[in-house]
């Protein structure tokens, strides 16, 4: 189970990682670090939590090759860095940590991604959260518009009450990177469901057409692959307010993965799936049926798209019949389409016809 750690607990957890390396060397063996395997081959459904988590497979990173040895060294640098931050009461973004690593000599990071991945590795092994490490992401939080009210504690430590319709402009309310209780308190709402939308264009379309008012919902712009904070707030709203979450995305294999990360847990964050996933979320569209039924302007699937779809066929998160059908349908059709292609039938088609029909099927309109 995921929980927050105190600074002391965090340090102890990190020292265990270091100790594994140290003890090996003392024994006359090459130092190593053991972590769960983080691919789709090692995720399994946890029925108690209703989400996908890492299984028992472990991989060992050891110093027998130059690449892994450097990773171990980097890990040590990161541990040292985090301890320093904890002691100094500061925090840093992942990007800042990447730049700070330039001064670590042989232990510096090659790319930003390497830096992010190592932070995740540490989270997983120590069972701490990024926040415990005082590390913040770069990612943009989502934007929300709708008749829902919450309280945010600003940087001066004061609580501000914000209604996401009356107190915000047309861009809506922007979520901060930390959406935990110490930062955000969910107050009240008058919505029937939350619609999470993939593209900014579609979000703006629905806002302009007043969809949130006409259909009593909260609109949330995911900004593509949603940040942890976005997924976390969706989960909190879904549970604390008991409102359904509908997800409206483009119709392509990558969007399927976006949905999976929202509803089932992302492979990369499977160690904290129960923290971030909203198992009750539903997929609204665009589906292959929609592409065919509405004859939407579409593109051929590229080689990468096809590879992605085939990989999804064996991804445990898409194992149920509905998903298998959807994926196979798309492979057969050979096409993908954007959600904004609905504009073929006019700017208001999506709010006048498409969404109402879909919501009716889901019992929400």
């Amino acid at each position: 189970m995921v929980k927050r750690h105190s600074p002391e607990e965090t340090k102890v957890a990190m020292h265990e990682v270091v100790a594994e390396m140290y003890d090996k060397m003392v024994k006359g063996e090459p130092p190593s670090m053991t972590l769960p395997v983080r691919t789709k081959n090692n995720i399994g459904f946890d029925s108690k939590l209703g989400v996908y988590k890492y299984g028992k497979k472990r991989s060992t990173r050891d110093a027998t090759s130059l690449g892994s040895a450097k990773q171990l060294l980097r890990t040590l640098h990161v541990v040292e860095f985090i301890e320093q931050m904890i002691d100094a009461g500061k925090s840093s973004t992942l990007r800042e940590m990447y730049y700070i690593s330039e001064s670590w000599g042989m232990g510096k990071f090659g790319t930003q991604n390497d830096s992010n991945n190592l932070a995740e590795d540490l989270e997983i092994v120590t069972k701490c959260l990024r926040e415990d490490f005082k590390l913040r992401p770069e990612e943009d939080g989502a934007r929300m518009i709708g008749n829902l009210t919450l309280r945010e504690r600003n940087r001066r430590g004061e609580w501000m009450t914000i209604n996401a319709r009356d107190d915000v402009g047309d861009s809506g309310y922007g979520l901060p990177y930390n959406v935990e209780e110490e930062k955000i308190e969910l107050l009240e709402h008058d919505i029937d469901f939350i619609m999470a939308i993939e593209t900014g264009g579609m979000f703006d379309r629905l806002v302009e057409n007043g969809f949130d008012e006409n259909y009593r919902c909260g609109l949330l712009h995911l900004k593509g692959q949603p940040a942890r904070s976005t997924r976390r707030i969706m989960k909190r709203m879904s549970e604390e307010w008991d409102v359904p979450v509908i997800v409206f995305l483009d119709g392509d294999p990558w969007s399927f993965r976006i949905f999976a990360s929202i509803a089932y847990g992302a492979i990369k964050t499977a160690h904290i799936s129960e923290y971030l996933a909203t198992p009750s979320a539903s997929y609204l569209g665009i589906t292959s049926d929609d592409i065919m039924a509405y004859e939407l302007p579409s593109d051929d699937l590229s080689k990468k798209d096809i590879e992605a779809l085939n990989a999804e066929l064996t991804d445990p998160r898409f194992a149920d019949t509905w998903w298998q059908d959807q994926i196979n349908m798309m492979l057969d059709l050979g096409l993908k389409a954007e959600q904004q292609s609905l504009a073929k039938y006019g700017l208001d088609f999506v709010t006048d016809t498409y969404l109402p029909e879909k919501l009716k099927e889901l019992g929400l309109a």
Partner: protein
Amino acid sequence: MGIAQKLADNQKQVAISEFFEKNKHFLGFDSLARSLITAVKESVDNSLDACEEARMLPTLRIQINKIDANKDIIEMKTTDNGPGIPQQSVEKVFGQLLFGSRFHAIRQSRGQQGIGITGVVMYSQLTTGRPTHVRSKIATEATASVVDIGLDTRKNKATKSNAAREIWEDENGELVEHGLEVTCRMKAKYQKGRQSVWQYLRMTSIVNPHADITFIDPEGEVHHWPRVTERLPRVVESIKPHPRGIHLGQLQRMCNESQDSRMTVFLRGSFSGVSSRSAKELCEASEISEKTKPKGLKPEQMRSLLEAMQGEKTIAGKPVKLLNPPTNCLSPIEEMLIKKGLSKTIDSRFISTMTRAPTVANGNPYQVEVGLIFGGSMAADKHVEVLRFANRVPLMYQQGGCLLTKAIEAVNWRQYGLEQAGGKGLPKGPAAILVHLASTNVQFTSEAKEALADNAEVMEEARKAIMEMGRGLKKHLQKKKKMAKTQEKFELINDILPAIAEKSAQILDRPVPDLAGSITKIMSAVISETQTTWNKETKMTDVSVVLFNYTSRARSYTILCTWPEKFGATLDNNELGGRKEATGVWAWKLATLDPGERITLSYSLGGLEKGDWTETDVFYRGSQEVIGASKMDEKFLDEIRQQEKALREAGMDIIETRDNESLLDFESDDEPTEVVPDEYDQPTVEAPEGQQTLFGGGN
């Protein structure tokens, strides 16, 4: 003048230009671009041959100027530092067709492939109406002789004009001691690129590493190919013809000229490879009495003798057994010099060269040499550059139809690391392949002498040699990969691992752990590091091989290293002793290495120049793989031993060290070696239309 005489004169007149027109292609003047290359070639060939015969290191200078771009008139000026030509011989050399020492003897010579400088004089006269200006200085005279040699088209004779003597000073104002300068104009085109004067001279410099060549092109740009060795090519001996390779005309001539009183004496003395017994058997097979005088042989007897020599007439069903001809009539370029020549001209990572032992085909001795140069700045997506040579003369045309190219194409390059579409044709990659055929009788595809004719034996010999190159390349590429891995491991245990130990100890506030055990488990290999470096002070090449045992068990090895024994190097400062394994391969049986232990093997090589030996191949015999060395390939050793044997038999096993050759050791009283002997045999090349010479004069 009678009508007959008039007609005869006219006929002669037509004959010269007609001769030229009809035979432009095989004389090398069929295109404007080619004409210039032919002119350069004849001049350069002469200079190189002259310097070699005089045992001097050649320094050549070739300058091309555009005189009239519209009319394509080019001026060529070539200068060499050779022995020069005595005044009285200049006319003969430049004005007489097929005149020279090159044509008569059976030995490897450049001259087989050209009509000589006379062809250039002819072409120049015919296209510009101007004579060729020759300046020649011999060492024993104070002044140089100058003269203009031309062709009188009406009288069919060489013309001499403006003969004089002058003082010849070089650009520094110093007196030229000896040398030759030829200036002539002709209708020709200067072009750049693959079939150009530049490329011709570049290739010439590769296979004549002892020559210093400077080329000034029409734009004034100076290209300089310095010499990479002071060693002159071997002195070649003429050999007598071998019965298997002779033809009827030659046999007839030899019989007619022979003063011998009996057939057996004639056969033993005038041919190579004929013992007393073989002489008797030849007579028997051809049904000619041993006592017959060769001069008195009848035509059908000569034919019979020829058939016996070719093995068509037999004794008891078997052809007469003959010995192989000697092969000391060949002068290969030599592996190390090819390597030096290539490395000076082409930027690269890896060069491998090989000189095969000489052998015989159809009664003619021949020898194949190959070189492969790889990496550096050559383009990886283009076909490899093919450098073909016959008797040290570059072949620039008809690449596709040449035997040497076919030999390259007949190798499966994909297994050696080069691309080759469909396994056929020329490979692609950042490489150049050199093939040189040295022979007393090179067979060409046509009179134009641009490409070598098909010959199964020569092709196979060349292919085998080229495959060796391929194997070397493959090993080099594998070695590089392995070395990269070894470097990584060294970085790991020398830098990263200690850092991990320190930092983890620091974070946990505990003592730094000892790394010995971890290192052994990480490496779990035996590593060897080899260094081959030139020592400026001792003027020797130092070689050191360090062996590290990073495994958990004791190991014992025999280490073998290659060294250039064939080139006269000496192995010194060899404390560990060892023993000779084969020519150029020395072996040391090392004491057992405990885990974590290392041992250093070192020695020095003398008798070499800087850059002669830059990479040592290290082999091992032992149970555990050694990273950085190759397992001893017993087949490789066998091949070396076989080649050793063949070279010994040819008398070519150890090349003389350079102390034997010295530059310009003439005393001024000595007569310089004449390029032109007073007596000479008639040329073996048949003159066209029954005429021996065109210009009249001489024999």
